[in-house]
């Protein structure tokens, strides 16, 4: 079908087509352009026909990719030409233009008198303008008009309007709630084929495009409150999910699957609110998706990997992860790292039991060691350390892997670490004595990188120290290794070898230093974080995020429960680890206090620090979410920072009861005051727990500032609604709790960071007022938050001369206060010293010549600065229920508050109420005065 009448154009196109090469084509085009240029310039009286012909030619040339730098005016002139034939071309843009145009377009779109043809163009034109300038629809009541437009019967207009709506909703979902029910009606009408003209069906499917777009809009409204609308949407989805089958006709297939996939992603969003039936229908496709993992096309393989990752849940995790593991060996390189990461995440998220998780990760390392990032094995270590039941199993499994002929380096690292920490748990098993394990690990030593060598050295000393009773043969072997590497080229390996050599000479007294690692604080899986980071694709990012918000990792939940149980049956591990910390602190303080306490060489103290710091640093640095100091270099400050603060004091005698009883029948599973007291002594743990919710707390303190993260975990399978949590701060603290989400999905955890600033000293504590609804009753409680004064104290080691000078300068009240305290919980001087140290009040032994007195110093931090506080306790060895307490500082109120705080800690409140007689005891002041 030739272009009738435009011979010139046809000839030109033919000429261009007949050109043998690019050069000829360029010559022909240049000639034509020159021709057109002269025509436009000289012959003023061009007929409309000629004008049109030349513009077409120019357009053709432009399309071929040549620059056309003239003739634009002629084109525009054509647009305004009186006759339709000349008017066909043209398009303009610009902000001012869109502003002036928008109202007209809106009018066209809304007016019912317009023809559908005009209205659908108006809708898309408005969309185009909206993309350029969002203000065009910022008109009062525009969403009502959109809702009105959705009543349209004409499918063509609806399609165009829906495109506009997708864009509007994407930018402002909240503004268009009134369109939801209309959209559900439309999709209902389409899937039921009600009143759909024949011309709008595509291979028998009622406009698949409109279906897809409508579901796109609905995806922005995952929770629909009206039960009727929800029900009809559910029915529609079910019809699509169940009714889509594979048919012969490719186009029909494509169209129906386009709809199916859109329904699937919508279903994914609404899953939380709908009955679980639908999930079954996706699972019907699981086998198909797994087969697609082997498709020759990489984009299909990627897609099916994504889909498997997305559809995985507790029921099918085992199958899917095993499938992924199997596929890992044959998968191509481009996809392997992602595959490994996703398998690791799924294994962690949905592990039916923990040993299975360890199995999966070790298999993963074995099969694709090169593609297993460090994060994955760090996570295993974290996991095993925090779950005691798992430690022996993990160590045994790791040992089995080492027996295999070719072991990947990452496997050597994991196995080395696990065996170093936990191989003593296996000592009784055949083939697992320290003496047998050491050569298995050391076998790999020559072929690994220096960083792994350093790690293995730590494992050796741990194995050596844990072997009880000591094995001289093993010791000989290990020491010879240390000796050999004392001159190693790499400084890290060399330093470790030397330090460990010296330490192992020290014998059993060093066992504590080599104790197992303390538990890790709970943190978001670094893997999930990584998965978020690597997902470049914006839509998927949001989908992943949504999933993350809905389902927190099982691992975190497990760890949570452990720390909750920790109080009821103290784990040997935690006691050992706190021992480690104390020793570490002891060394530090002694080395700072000076030469009079030099029973341990200062050099050794430094070594212990560097050791602890870099062992922790090694593991913490890459895992930490917060910016934990990553430096391995062992300066005393960085050595201390990653460690948790030491526990603060023994049981608080002042049992602080819950302020307000529960307003309902839901009762906490333990004593809220016990939880509170425990938290005064440590920085993380459970604050409250009942059958539905668990509230955990984790605090970090630095000077006058603190950050408390409150974890609200939904333990139940039903979402908790109307969640409310308000912090009522006392006047001396400045704290702000950001709004807590109203809804906690089932089995999910919400974290609320709370920043605290201490303004001045006070013994009052903030109160957390929280409530939630578990779909049956509203539960609420007021809980004391363990933001006590000792959190803002830091030990202040002080020399004898300084102490005396300051003590003298602060003479008498109000800066120096003295009180005789009665009804004291009887304790030995050493116990009291420990108690003081736990509250960060640093006792300086030997400073007071009287062995029955304690002299201590601490620094209190508030917004206005640091205040040095001195404390003196004089006890009567004959009667331990009374003592004289003197507190001095440069600030009167701090002195008073600290004195009262210490008193509260020392006094057994029950003994006062039980024995009021002790209050009447006379003459203690005289007795104490004699002691001075």
């Amino acid at each position: 079908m030739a272009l009738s009448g435009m011979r010139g154009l046809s000839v030109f196109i033919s000429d261009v087509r007949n050109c043998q090469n690019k050069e000829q084509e360029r010559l022909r085009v240049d000639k034509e352009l020159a021709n057109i240029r002269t025509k436009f310039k000289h012959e003023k009286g061009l007929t409309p026909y000629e004008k049109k012909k030349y513009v077409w030619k120019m357009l053709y040339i432009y399309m071929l990719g040549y620059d056309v730098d003239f003739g634009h005016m002629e084109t525009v002139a054509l647009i305004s030409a009186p006759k339709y034939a000349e008017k066909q071309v043209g398009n303009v843009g610009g902000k001012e233009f869109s502003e002036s145009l928008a109202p007209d377009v809106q009018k066209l779109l809304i007016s019912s008198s317009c023809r559908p043809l005009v209205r659908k163009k108006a809708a898309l034109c408005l969309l185009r303008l909206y993309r350029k300038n969002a203000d065009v629809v910022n008109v009062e009541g525009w969403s009502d008009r959109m809702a009105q437009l959705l009543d349209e019967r004409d499918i063509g207009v609806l399609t165009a309007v829906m495109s506009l709506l997708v864009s509007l909703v994407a930018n402002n979902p909240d503004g268009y709630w009134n369109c939801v029910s209309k959209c559900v009606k439309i999709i209902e009408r389409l899937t039921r084929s009600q009143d759909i003209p024949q011309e709008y069906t595509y291979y028998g499917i009622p406009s698949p495009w409109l279906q897809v777009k409508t579901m796109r809009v609905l995806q922005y409204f995952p929770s629909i409150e009206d039960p009727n609308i929800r029900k009809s949407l559910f029915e529609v989805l079910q019809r699509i999910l169940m009714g889509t089958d594979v048919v012969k006709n490719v186009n029909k297939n494509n169209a129906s699957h386009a709809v199916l996939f859109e329904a699937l992603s919508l279903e994914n969003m609404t899953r939380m609110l709908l009955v679980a039936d639908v999930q079954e229908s996706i699972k019907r496709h699981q086998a198909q998706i797994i087969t697609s993992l082997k498709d020759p096309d990489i984009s299909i393989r990627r897609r099916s990997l994504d889909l498997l990752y997305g559809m995985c849940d507790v029921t099918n995790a085992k199958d899917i992860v095993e499938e992924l593991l199997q596929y890992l060996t044959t998968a191509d390189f481009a996809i392997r790292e992602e595959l490994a990461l996703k398998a690791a995440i799924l294994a962690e998220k949905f592990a039916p039991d923990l040993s299975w998780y360890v199995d999966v990760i070790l298999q993963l390392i074995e099969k694709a060691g090169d593609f297993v990032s460090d994060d994955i094995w760090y996570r295993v270590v974290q996991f095993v350390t925090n779950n005691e039941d798992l430690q022996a199993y993990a160590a045994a499994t790791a040992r089995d892997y080492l027996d295999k002929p070719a072991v990947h380096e990452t496997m050597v690292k994991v196995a080395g670490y696990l065996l170093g920490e936990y191989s003593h748990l296996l000592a009784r098993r055949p083939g697992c004595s320290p003496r047998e394990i050491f050569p298995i690990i050391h076998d790999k030593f020559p072929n690994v990188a220096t960083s792994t060598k350093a790690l293995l050295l730590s494992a050796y000393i741990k194995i050596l120290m844990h072997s009880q009773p000591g094995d001289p043969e093993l010791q000989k072997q290990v020491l010879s290794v240390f000796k050999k590497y004392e001159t190693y080229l790499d400084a890290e390996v060399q330093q470790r070898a030397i330090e460990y050599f010296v330490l192992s000479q020290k014998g059993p007294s060093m066992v504590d230093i080599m104790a197992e690692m303390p538990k890790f604080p709970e943190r978001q899986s670094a893997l999930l974080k990584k998965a978020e980071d690597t997902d470049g694709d914006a839509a998927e990012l949001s989908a992943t995020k949504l999933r993350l918000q809905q389902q927190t990792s099982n691992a975190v939940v497990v760890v949570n429960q452990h720390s909750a149980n920790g109080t009821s049956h103290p784990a040997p591990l935690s006691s050992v680890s706190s021992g480690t910390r104390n020793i570490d602190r002891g060394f530090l303080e002694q080395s700072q206090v000076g030469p009079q306490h030099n029973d341990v060489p200062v050099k050794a103290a430094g070594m212990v620090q560097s050791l602890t710091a870099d062992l922790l640093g090694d593991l913490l640095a890459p895992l930490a979410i917060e910016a934990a100091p990553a430096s391995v270099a062992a300066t005393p400050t960085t050595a201390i920072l990653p460690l948790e603060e030491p526990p603060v004091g023994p049981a608080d005698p002042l049992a602080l009861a819950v302020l307000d009883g529960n307003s309902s029948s839901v009762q906490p599973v333990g004593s809220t005051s016990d939880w509170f007291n425990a938290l005064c002594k440590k920085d993380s743990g459970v604050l409250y727990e009942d059958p539905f919710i668990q509230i955990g707390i984790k605090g970090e303190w630095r000077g006058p500032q603190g950050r408390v993260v409150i974890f609200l975990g939904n333990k139940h399978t039903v979402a908790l609604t109307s969640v409310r949590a308000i912090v009522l701060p006392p006047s001396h603290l400045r704290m702000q709790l950001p709004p807590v989400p109203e809804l906690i999905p089932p089995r999910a955890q919400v974290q609320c960071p709370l920043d605290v600033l201490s303004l001045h000293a006070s013994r009052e504590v903030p109160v957390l007022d929280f409530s939630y609804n578990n779909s049956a009753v509203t539960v609420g409680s007021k809980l004391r938050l363990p933001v006590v004064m000792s959190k803002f104290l830091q030990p202040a080691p002080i020399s004898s001369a300084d102490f005396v000078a300051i003590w003298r300068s602060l003479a008498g009240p109000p800066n120096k206060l003295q009180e005789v305290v009665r009804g004291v919980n009887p304790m030995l001087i050493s116990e009291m010293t420990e108690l003081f140290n736990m509250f960060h009040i640093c006792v300086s032994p030997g400073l007071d010549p009287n062995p029955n007195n304690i002299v201590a110093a601490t620094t209190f931090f508030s917004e206005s600065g640091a205040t040095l506080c001195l404390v003196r306790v004089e006890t009567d060895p004959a009667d331990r229920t009374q003592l004289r307490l003197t507190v001095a500082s440069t600030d009167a109120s701090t002195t008073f508050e600290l004195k009262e705080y210490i008193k509260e800690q020392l006094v057994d409140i029950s003994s006062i109420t039980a024995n009021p007689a002790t209050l009447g005891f006379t003459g203690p002041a005289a007795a104490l005065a004699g002691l001075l």
Partner: protein
Amino acid sequence: MIHFVLLFSRQGKVRLTKWYSPYSQKERAKVIRELSGVILPRGPKLCNFVEWRGVKVVYKRYASLYFCMCIDSEDNELECLEIIHHYVQILDRYFGNVCELDLIFNFHKAYFILDEVLIAGELQESSKKSVARVIAAQDALVDAAKEQAASLSNIIAQATR
């Protein structure tokens, strides 16, 4: 949304381009060059979707012509594939067994039809009949104008003879 529509032959010759997002002439040339390099070597058994520079390109080959559409990565690619087929069906109906030559010599018609199917990178009309009606009306207008012009020039020619 659809960012652009591209038609090229098996030899890589461009037959139609339509841009719904702003691209400079230089960028356009680059896109065409790169995409034909990516798509042309792909075998017939491979997938119709290519992930390319953060977006997705949906393409389908009809005889010697490749129809490509570029969409956002979160868009539904099957839907887009069927938009291509929808467009081809309309072309087929209009030209009657459409072939590459039809699109070469009547490229402007192909543009007109595309403009009735897509506006602003979104599907405007999913009814083939409705598109056919509009195009027929356009043709009628053009014919009428042409006749008028012809009769006018006849009159002028006769008058000035």
